[in-house]
């Protein structure tokens, strides 16, 4: 095996790019195989952005994500019924390298005082801009138990639960105990 100085070999540890690795999330509504989805994710220019406040505007998102490169388009995530922003969006860049920079450097930083999370997306398709929760928002807001003023207060189940508690026998018990 003779040495070939023209061969460009890079040490594996230098290729580590944890920010750009695929996460465990896969879209359950994706039409195609897992393999198809993963191939799309690995070549995608589109990012899912989550944990936004309901009040964060397209303009704010545009300003932040433009710091990584030219945006092709931005699609706000909307409540299925109210058609108002429900805390997520899709950001599509002109170039993949811009999306990679966003994954490495914007993910985990703040927008509108909230830590935003970015993840690879297989590509925007009409209909994907709507929340998939029963009440129209995102699924996570269905099960959320904390109070988040930027996302409508309590999550859907927590709100239901508190409604039940203020009217049922458990509520009376609570009142006598406090």
């Amino acid at each position, binding site marked *: 095996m003779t040495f070939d100085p023209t061969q460009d070999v890079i040490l*594996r540890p230098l290729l580590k*790019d944890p920010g750009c690795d695929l996460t465990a999330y896969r879209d359950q509504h994706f039409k195609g195989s897992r393999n198809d989805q993963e191939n799309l994710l690995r070549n995608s220019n589109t990012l899912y952005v989550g944990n936004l406040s309901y009040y964060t*505007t397209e303009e*704010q998102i545009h300003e932040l994500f433009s710091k990584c490169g*030219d945006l092709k388009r931005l699609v*706000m995530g909307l409540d299925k019924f109210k058609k108002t922003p429900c805390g997520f969006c899709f950001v599509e860049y002109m170039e993949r390298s811009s999306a990679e*920079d966003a994954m*490495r*450097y914007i993910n985990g930083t703040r*927008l509108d005082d909230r830590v935003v999370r970015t993840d690879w997306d297989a590509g925007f398709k009409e209909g994907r801009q709507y929340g998939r929760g029963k009440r129209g928002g995102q699924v996570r807001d269905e099960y959320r138990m904390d109070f988040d003023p930027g996302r409508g207060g309590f999550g859907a189940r927590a709100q239901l639960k508190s409604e039940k508690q203020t009217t049922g026998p458990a509520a009376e018990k609570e009142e006598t105990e406090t």
Partner: protein
Amino acid sequence: MPRRPHQKDSDTDEDGRTSASFTKRRKTSETTEEIEKRLESLICRVGEKSSSSLESNLEGLAAVLEADLPNFKPQILQILLCCSYQLPEKCPIYTTLVGLLNVRNYKCGGEFVEMLLLKLKRLLSISQFENARFLIQFVSDLVNCNVIAPASVMSLLDGFVDVTKQEGIPQSRKDWYVYVVMATLPWCGATLTEKKVDEMEVLFTKMQRYIMTRQKPHHDFLRVWAIDEPHPQEEYMDCLFAQICKLREDNWVEDILPRPYKAFEPVLENALQHTFPDFVVPPHIEGTSLYPIPKVIFRIFDYTDCPEGPLLPGNHAIERWLIEESMRNMINTNKYDKKECATRLLNFPGKEKIPLNHMIIECLLGDMFRLPVSPLQQIFYTSIFIELCRLQPGMIPQVLAIASDMLFERLDTMNITCVDRFVNWFSHHLSNFQFRWTWDDWGDCLQEDFNSPKPKFIREVLEKCMRLAFFARIRDIVPQDFEPLVPQPPKICFKYEVVPGANASEDDHMMITSSQKIIAAIKNKCQDDELIVMLEEMFPQGPEQVHNGKRLELFLQSLLFLAQKSFSHSFSALFKFHKVLKWAASDEEGKVDVLRITKDIWRNHPQMLIVLVDRMLRMEIVDCSSVAKWLFSPDMAPDFTRMYVWEIMHMTIRKMNKHVARLDASLVEMQERAIVDDKKMDDDEESDMRRSYSVFAPNEEDIQKMKEQVDTASGEQKKLFLIIFQRFIMILSDHLARSAGLHKNYNTSWYKNTIERLKEIFLLHKDMVKKYMSTMENLLFTVDLDPHILTVFKQFASIAK
């Protein structure tokens, strides 16, 4: 410990196809790759945090590698070769390892040295100069491990310095070869002085002569601050030479570089050294060889800024350079992982001996402000500062605040590109920390003219902060007396507003009514053709093909008013009716008018204006030249020094450059695909496939068409730059003439700003602009021009070479 491969499994028979043996068979070949991976991992990990000492780890690893040499020599040597220039921060660790291997296996050591030199030649000929520098550093350090004879290293370095004698080569080539020698001496200076004292004397004399006589026209262009108070902004070669001379005076003693080989002296002493023949430096190839750009050393701190704790090494102490270099290497190795990068910086080896936080911040700010271009994206620096604040909340935010304060104080002399970057970084950083800042500390600047650098900086910062938040938030974060610097709320300024009770002229009334009609039609989902008919009726065009400004204004204002709700609404509106827009603004004048109207209606929302201009360029409603003309038009004069104007200018130039580059790449790709080599084709399946694909290969006609596209685009690109320069000359000459006429001082804020922007265009687009030098010399920057303007051009011409 990696297992030896080829272990015979007694229960596998030759043709065994049982699942067990099949797995074992697969495992054997996989194991080879696994072993390679494991070796790579072992070698890369040496020197990292460990429960054992570095010496014992090196000893152990050397033993393991020696044992694996018979079976894995090429792989091991390849890995070590990669380490030699890809992990520069660990150079002495790997040279020690190579030294230990050389003791155990002389032949192997020799082969490795040969590989190093072949790779060096390769790196130099493909212009990978940073990698080459690290490799040279490695080769030189091997003299300390008794792997290479001092005479060989001495002759190598001497040969590099002799490049300065070559003729007909660019200065950047000579500069680099001298720089690399200086950069290497901290590692091998002591040994070479000990063994080759006379040759070193000669080397230094040669270097000194070169350093003293070389020209530095780039110094002015690349400095962050125009003055040397309070800290000198030294030219990088001057600074390093001073540091090396001082190190030599100090007998090459410094306490920064780790030297693990010292612990192995008795072992390494016994090794046989290798020599190599004179290294032939690859020649300069005109048009291909690309040497690194010179630098100016960024200094924002001196020892008075770190009064408590360890001393900050002086400007000419080699420690300053060694630590910064080490930090830069750390950053480059971990640039994709902000957490790892920040963690490693904060755990810098030997951090107790230095004011760590100050040095990290100075290093990162220096890179962030590096001209013409930073080593990494601006977003990287923002995110690494945030990460550092997160990991070291007790110290980093304070030092960062002090640095920001210093940067603010020196805004008057800061390069304008750097000011832009400071604005962008500072506003983005604040947005991650609830916009908390001690604005009152900067209250003094409110006494100044609001166009002077400090209040202007605050205005631009607040404007950027508003884009990341919203008006009321930003208004509330600053003290009341800062109110004049707070940006306007981003409201639309619709020209044809229906104001009840207002006294409108008949003409205005007609326009308002017409506008309402247009708006109603669009709301009723009319087609673009219908709108054209409507507009033609409202404004019948005479026989002259002259641009109808009123018609365009009526339509565009109404459209943008209707779509004001969000970016998406506006983009959809432009998309839906771009045909109408192109019809209403078909000529040059019309295109500039489109921009004027857009700016008029969105004058309080620069962010919206920027994205609309971007869309209009993309949809070809306007073109790059019309954007340039518009930005220089009298209409834009009041806003000419505002950052958003230059955002648009640079975005437009960037778009044009990208467009040409894309077409260029397509042409090259087409030409490659067109190569159909009939002679090489045999009668096999692959050739058959290639033959059938060649039917689809681009032919001469396709290539010609593509060439024409490239030519047209290049022509457009040249036109854009010439328009920009021509307009600069016009407005600057005008200002200078008027000032002279009125006996006023010409050096106003506007003038300083504008001249800096001219320099900025030259610097940031040097490679493009270089191509038009003769046109510019003959047509634009002629001798009759005001000397103030001509000087800038001449300075640029000197660095364009």
